[in-house]
């Protein structure tokens, strides 16, 4: 996976994770372009699209769009489930997660993501194991 973006229906970026080195300028350009493209798509359309030489996989959950860019060889459907598993993790951690949780606790959203995906690859798929790692960390916060 090359990057993951979370943005709202209004186009506000809520989380960005880049797994390839890009300049800030490029990141902003890509974000702008993709947010526009994805928001312009209608609800029943397919969750995949070709974009530059990448494949975009996206899904909307309530007011948030989750959008991943993967490479040609990567599997679209499993990426869709990566998104879902991440949503489940957030949901379990925050208890019915909503956009506000991610805004106010953005650092937590990043920590959870790092436990789940690293370097753009799935690191741990077990929900229990991911949350255990985060809980342990929370305990250390005393």
């Amino acid at each position, binding site marked *: 996976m090359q990057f993951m973006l979370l943005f709202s229906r209004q186009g506000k970026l809520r989380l960005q994770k880049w797994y390839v*080195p890009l300049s800030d300028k490029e990141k902003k350009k890509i974000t702008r372009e993709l947010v526009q493209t994805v928001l312009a798509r209608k609800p029943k359309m397919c969750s995949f699209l070709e974009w530059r*030489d990448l494949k975009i996989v996206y899904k909307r959950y309530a007011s948030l769009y989750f959008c991943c860019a993967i490479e040609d*060889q990567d599997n679209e*459907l*499993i990426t869709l489930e990566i998104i879902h598993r991440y949503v489940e993790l957030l949901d379990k951690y925050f*208890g019915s997660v909503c956009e506000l949780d991610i*805004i106010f606790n953005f*650092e937590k959203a990043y920590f959870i993501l790092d436990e789940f995906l690293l370097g753009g*690859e799935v690191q741990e*798929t077990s929900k229990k194991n991911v949350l255990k790692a985060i809980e342990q960390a929370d305990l250390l916060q005393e």
Partner: protein
Amino acid sequence: MPAVSKGDGMRGLAVFISDIRNCKSKEAEIKRINKELANIRSKFKGDKALDGYSKKKYVCKLLFIFLLGHDIDFGHMEAVNLLSSNRYTEKQIGYLFISVLVNSNSELIRLINNAIKNDLASRNPTFMGLALHCIANVGSREMAEAFAGEIPKILVAGDTMDSVKQSAALCLLRLYRTSPDFVPMGDWTSRVVHLLNDQHLGVVTAATSLITTLAQKNPEEFKTSVSLAVSRLSRIVTSASTDLQDYTYYFVPAPWLSVKLLRLLQCYPPPEDAAVRGRLTECLETILNKAQEPPKSKKVQHSNAKNAVLFEAISLIIHHDSEPNLLVRACNQLGQFLQHRETNLRYLALESMCTLASSEFSHEAVKTHIETVINALKTERDVSVRQRAVDLLYAMCDRSNAQQIVAEMLNYLETADYSIREEIVLKVAILAEKYAVDYTWYVDTILNLIRIAGDYVSEEVWYRVIQIVINRDDVQGYAAKTVFEALQAPACHENLVKVGGYILGEFGNLIAGDPRSSPLIQFNLLHSKFHLCSVPTRALLLSTYIKFVNLFPEIKTTIQDVLRSDSQLKNADVELQQRAVEYLRLSTIASTDILATVLEEMPPFPERESSILAKLKKKKGPGTVTDLEEIKKERNSDVNGGTESTPVNASTVSTPSPSADLLGLGAAPLTSSAPPPSTTGSLLVDVFSDSASVVAPLAPGSEDNFARFVCKNNGVLFENQLLQIGLKSEFRQNLGRMFIFYGNKTSTQFLNFTPTLICSDELQSSLNLQTKPVDPTVDGGAQVQQVVNIECISDFMEAPILNIQFRYGGTFQNISVKLPITLNKFFQPTEMASQDFFQRWKQLSNPQQEMQNIFKAKHPMDTEITKAKIIGFGSALLEEVDPNPANFVGAGIIHTKTTQIGCLLRLEPNLQAQMYRLTLRTSKETVSQRLCELLSEQF
């Protein structure tokens, strides 16, 4: 679940975020942020040392501001300080800030690396995890250099915790991707492969990604992973859905790991060991069987996960391309998905079938779905799905269904989305050519393309139809008749005018017998379009007209009248004006025989790979199209007479534009005389020229243009549809200055515009060129100027090459022309009397000092023009010196930095024989030789 510690101490942060959210306008937001930045800055600079908590809070605020899209130029140091905190949360925020905001400030990198080193050595798994995450997130070369040796040790050490192993594996993967040179292979690799057997599925999941990437680059070294992966996969697919506990996802056992294992197996051919191979086939069959079972859950997650594994299994089956049974089963499965109610599955089925179509075992099976795919093209509501349908139709096309598929694509083109029109045009053009049994069908198809989507028909497409018509005499009459009819439409696309103009100019005579398409009618029809066309098209039409002069002497005067009109002869555009002048002159002075020779029908183009195909490859990326094409090519080579039967490595790199040199004056030798590109495999050059900065061979016509500048200093050096290069130069003694003007003729920006001057080593020592780079962006319609300062050190033979590379739209352009800096530019004329001249002439009688050339006149032998050329050449023209008044003599001094060389020249025309004798005498052999060479080309 931990109560989410919303108030875990960073109340200030929450307040700040609320404030930002409450801002009514962008201005208010910026104001609030600036206030906060000022506050934080003063806190960081203040005398009072900040405690860890405050530091963490402020660093976190800065991070939030950065993620909102604002620039942050301080706080890095404080974040680095947090790394060495003993409190986990402070450390964690520090690492997060570094991961998101690191820049290559070398001083900081050293400090960061130090902190990471300490954490890696701490043996505290949570700290180690944080450090590894940070390395994986940043992944810079500095970090690779510092840690790539250490991480493999952590990965394979016996006492490393599972979670740390997982992070270490993926961390190493990231470093290997950015800096493979820093990752040492060694003993650890075999131990990493054995992680596929690990008890902990999380460790296997992470390790599989690492092994896959390593195996792609070093297949030999990781070969043992195949059997391990197969047995791991087999255990997963045969497990009951509860066996794997938390690694089962919606009743699908370990879908992520299964997909990764199937990906890993795609790095290798089918296993050689029969037992392993049998076991893998069993796995794949099980996966295909499961697809037919009733779903264990109605949730979309269940079907997605199950199908993710299925699609990956199908990819592996296609990759192996060895089990007909599996391939056909895969195809049937995808066939079912083509009509599935889930759009996602229809999309993926179309995509996956594209690759199946290229396997000889399943090509026929794919073809049976043609009606469904055509239907998808018509009814799918999502353009990305329709695009896949177009791709699949293209992939499944062969001789048996080409007419149907091309017709459907043309049909679809009328309503197709703008974003994919150009690609469809290319595909139709390729299919029509490739599967044409009857070339009239081909001509009709291309004209239809121009009619339906003229704006999207690129040069390559219409060049190609002309090449084919010229090469096949069975279709020329039909083509002439068809374009003639198509041109009758009151509004026709300019591309049609181009094709029509070219074809009628060559083959208009084939239909001139019909009074409805008599020469005059043909001419009037074309000329009625003339004024609506752009300059390049008009230039092409002027060439058609001169060709008509030869084909149809009866309308010569009509054409001459047109050429003579002010709008042509005094046209503001140099190219048009020049063509009008030259063609008019040619039609007036040349005899019918000469006209017939000069304006002869174009010789056949050398057979070569279609430039359209090259363009499509460029558009789609080299991978996909190439493979498909190559495979099909092999399969179809016997059926096809056209381009396919010729070897692909035929000589040419690019298609010369027919408009550039319609008359073919020198076109034939030019393509072959152009130096071959330095890379082998000319086809690849076409596709990859983008990345490899290969210098293009000289543009067609470059030699001619070069010769034109020997006796003049200003003018247009090069011009094509996109770019015009003009020159203005001045020389004094051994110095000169040349202004090069690059004009963008399009309305689109040129990007990465890079002109480069190339001198051979030899030339470099005698000619010193200095210039500054130009702005890499050239706006549409704009002109940029480059100044070259020139110093002649000693006499020289060759000319520098000007290479220009840039991106236009999606395509990469690479043009080379010879830059007319020639030895004679450093001439200073010398006047002298007859006596002096012959005295010196005699002094230079040594055979090495004289160079003589006898040659046929290439231009009319006009005294005034000859005089002008000799003066333009740079020497003085000495009147009344030679006893024979018909002869011309000249004298001058060539100035170089090291020396001055006196030169005398004598040109003796022989009108009757239409020949010249040119004699050069100078004090230096190479100078005599070069000047003689240059000047001989001028008459």
